[in-house]
């Protein structure tokens, strides 16, 4: 370390900070962001993160389309979202500044690599003059402009590395500065670098040098007025790891196989933003997960249904356009009454829409998007870590009730990450998934003879004496043989619907966050949980009589929801769509006309904008 100049700067204590790292796709911002996140987690902060990838896979270097970002929000109190507005923006080039500056909080810190502001990069970003020379910039933000290119080169002088390799190290300069700024112990990072680049010791040493130079630079220069520390949050004790929503969903497949002793079969087709689930799960072979990359979306779900017919726990993963393609197959799973889990990582629609941007786009299609009368249970995850539990619950319901189950997550949850407490041994309870092994009727095996809850038995190939045929044609209510009898069809339609309604016994009553009655109730579902909960907490802190209920179960709805909705004077439904839950509530509770707050801009709802909306309503 460089010797200290002797000047000590004050260390300010803060409750929470949002930092956004942005640069060119090749600048390694995802790496820097996740390394900083790890350090924050180990420091005991609660946190949430969200990456922002460019939509184009190989956008030209330095271009606006090639900007890649990573946002982390960490703090000493409950962190609900990756943060509304960054307090600190680390921008590695002009394009990154151009696309992100408008999000930086007024008065926030802008750290930027002045070395990248050459004529070529300025032109690619559409700047006529160098924005760093703009006085307004310095007036609105604390600008820390550092020539990281030059300082990185200086740190590596005589190292023998190529110019290209040297340039690749500069992200560690930025990371070193951030470590100093937020009082993180640098030793751990040095160890991480050596581990990460174990196979290339010269690159490891170069990164160590550059990181240390960045850290020393923060310490010795007077560019920063003060240093910050964020105290540890009070989290439930245990062992933690970070998970993304997609990663958590994949883990749930393995956990379910382990807890049931049954094979989990994932048939899927790559689609943004759901692909990572298939990728991750393909590593879980020893846990009892079999993966199959099908030729298309339809075959993805078809293979899963085929596997379910064979006694596996079939699952398929997809996003909106894929779900649309799967709807005929879903109808088959409904009429055949086979267990199946469909994980839909929602994205902006319709059609190809906005593949990399989030939207609560698929509530309608989840509830209603099939031919004929085809109700299915719908569960929505509320946070990245909750994608684990929502998926687990999907399997439990599918196998208990012999039905397809739709688990809704979204791109914001799928790519976002948060700490996940690893359940203790024995904390997750094993459960039995039973097959029918004996003839259930004097006249032979009746695959559609139901129990008191209307659940049919599941006999699988390989079981002698229970050979039977099922399919997509309406079937006799006992034997499952084809039946064109109209009265039988009516009976089957009503029976299938009643069975799904019966699932309400597994739906917990909804709990109000806040007082039992009040002026305004916020009703959310899925990925907006964090923002809405954060907004409700902020409003209550301001003395507003605002409650919050969050729907995990969309079908069936919780038994007490109707009563809860009447307990407040006004109901406001914030959604990242044009009002799908609001309309569903209108339909489900005639007379109720909730207010709406809708954002369809590809981004999560901000706590600040929702808070402002509620304040406007309450006057």
């Amino acid at each position, binding site marked *: 370390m460089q010797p200290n100049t002797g000047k000590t700067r004050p260390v300010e204590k803060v409750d929470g900070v949002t930092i956004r790292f942005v640069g060119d796709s090749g600048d390694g911002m995802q790496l820097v962001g996740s390394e900083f996140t790890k350090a924050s987690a180990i420091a005991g902060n609660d946190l949430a993160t969200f990456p922002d990838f460019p939509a184009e896979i190989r956008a030209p270097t330095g271009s606006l389309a090639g900007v890649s970002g990573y946002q982390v929000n960490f703090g000493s109190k409950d962190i609900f979202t990756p943060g509304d507005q960054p307090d600190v923006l680390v921008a590695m080039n002009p394009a990154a500044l151009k696309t992100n500056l408008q999000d930086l909080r007024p008065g926030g810190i802008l750290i930027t690599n002045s070395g990248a502001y050459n004529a070529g990069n300025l032109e690619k970003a559409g700047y006529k003059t160098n924005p760093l020379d703009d006085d307004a910039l310095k007036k609105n933000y604390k600008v820390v402009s550092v020539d990281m290119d030059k300082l990185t080169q200086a740190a590596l002088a005589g190292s023998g590395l190529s110019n290209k390799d040297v340039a690749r190290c500069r992200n560690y300069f930025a990371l070193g500065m951030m470590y100093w700024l937020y009082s993180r112990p640098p030793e751990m990072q040095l160890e991480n670098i050596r581990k990460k680049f174990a196979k290339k010791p010269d690159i490891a040493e170069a990164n160590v040098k550059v990181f240390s130079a960045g850290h020393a630079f923060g310490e010795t220069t007077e560019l920063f007025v003060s240093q910050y520390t964020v105290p540890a949050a009070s989290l439930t*004790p245990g062992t933690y790891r970070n998970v993304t929503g997609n990663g958590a969903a994949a883990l749930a497949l393995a956990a379910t196989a382990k807890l049931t002793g049954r094979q989990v079969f994932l048939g899927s087709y790559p689609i943004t933003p759901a692909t990572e689930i298939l990728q991750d799960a393909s590593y879980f072979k020893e846990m009892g997960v079999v993966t199959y990359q*099908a030729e298309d979306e339809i075959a993805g779900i078809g293979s899963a249904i*085929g596997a379910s017919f064979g006694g596996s726990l079939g699952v398929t993963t997809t996003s909106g356009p894929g779900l649309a393609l799967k709807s005929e197959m879903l109808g088959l799973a409904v009429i055949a009454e086979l267990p199946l889990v469909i994980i839909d990582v929602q994205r902006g629609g319709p059609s190809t829409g906005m593949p990399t941007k989030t939207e609560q786009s698929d509530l309608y299609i989840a509830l209603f998007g099939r031919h004929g009368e085809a109700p299915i249970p719908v569960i929505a995850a509320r946070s990245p870590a909750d994608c684990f539990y929502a998926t687990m619950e999907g399997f439990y319901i599918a196998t208990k009730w012999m039905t397809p189950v739709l688990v809704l997550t979204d791109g914001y949850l799928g790519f976002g990450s948060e700490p996940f407490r690893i359940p203790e041994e024995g904390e997750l309870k094993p459960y039995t998934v039973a097959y029918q092994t004996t003839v259930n009727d004097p006249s032979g095996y009746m695959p559609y003879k139901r129990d008191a809850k209307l659940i049919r038995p599941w006999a699988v190939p390989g079981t002698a004496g*229970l050979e039977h045929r099922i399919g997509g044609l309406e079937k006799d209510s006992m034997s499952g043989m084809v039946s064109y009898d109209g009265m039988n069809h009516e009976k089957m339609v009503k029976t299938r619907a009643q069975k799904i309604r019966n699932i309400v016994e597994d739906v917990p009553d909804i709990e109000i966050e806040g007082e039992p009655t009040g002026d305004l109730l916020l009703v959310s579902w899925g990925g907006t949980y964090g923002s809405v909960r954060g907004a409700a907490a902020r409003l209550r802190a301001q003395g507003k009589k605002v409650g919050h209920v969050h729907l995990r179960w969309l079908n069936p709805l919780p038994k007490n929801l109707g009563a809860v909705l009447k307990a407040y004077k006004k109901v406001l439904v914030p959604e990242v769509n044009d009002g799908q839950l609001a309309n569903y509530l209108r339909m489900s509770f005639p007379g109720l006309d909730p207010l709406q707050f809708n954002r369809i801009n590809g981004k999560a709802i901000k706590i600040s904008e929702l808070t402002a909306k509620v304040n406007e309503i309450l006057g």
Partner: protein
Amino acid sequence: MSPNTQTQNPVPTYTKKDFESGVDPRWCPGCGDFSIINQVQKALPNVGVARENIVFISGIGCSSRFPYYMNNYGMHTLHGRAPSFASGLKVSRPELMVWVITGDGDALAIGGNHFIHTMRRNLDIKMLMFNNRIYGLTKGQVSPTSELGKKTKTTPHGSPDYPFNAPALAMGAGATFVARSIDIEGAHMGGVIAEAAKHKGSTFVEIFQNCPVFNDGAYTFLTEKAVKADAILRMEAGKPLLFGKDNKKGIRFDGQKAELEVVTIGENGITEKDILIHDPSRSDPTIAFMLANLSDRPGFPTPIGIFRSVRKPTADEMTWDMIKAAKAKKGDVSLRKFLSDAETWTVK
């Protein structure tokens, strides 16, 4: 093998009756499908697989009612999609014998994508495609195997579309067993089905099937007594490709032109030695492909029998080899240990 496997019982001695579900088939009188199900039910007692371990999966169309009439496990699924269900079932339960029953419209039109991918993967799935060259269930529209110029309800002026040659398509897609038979050639079909049952890998059998209601006589150009001997080429492994009334006509490989030609023994110095010997086990599919295409060439006979039969590792075998290797390497991992396989930290 897979966690869903039931205890394996010894295979009992079966008769044809054991494979009849007791539901009377509802095909039109005289439909070629009757003869096909008869041959399948006759063949199954001899395949050495327990009845409960055999699954029939079908799509939509006249032929796809088939599973209801078999006393096995069965699924009557969606139009064109049967191979996708079969693939998931076979990958997850490799010990089952999985059959797909389909038609020309089901397999080659709406299900074309699933068809080619099932063939290329070499999953051990046995597909019987009943080819009546028409849409029967919807009462008579042109199909992907209808002849050029065919007049149907949707092509009143004749079809402007070229048909698929199904065995050639299957081979092009990578099928490792490809054969053809005809509904009224019961004994021949029975033999082909028995061989299909034995094969491990993607198995495709095209069966020319007469639809007396909507496309009657589609195959009389082959099956009429007067033309039969000259029109059909019966391929038998290890034997020269001879046909015609006195078995004097034969197929010769013209090395100069690199194509197959019809020659007559005794004419122009041709002897039996000049005739191509049929060998379905050639690893290069070129000759089998040429044979499949003969039926599209005027003046050539239509081959029936087995075009190609080669053994390659199947996708289901390779999948389970990987699963076994992963299990052997990692052993029984506890859930907690599995979930902890990442960078972790402790909160006290």
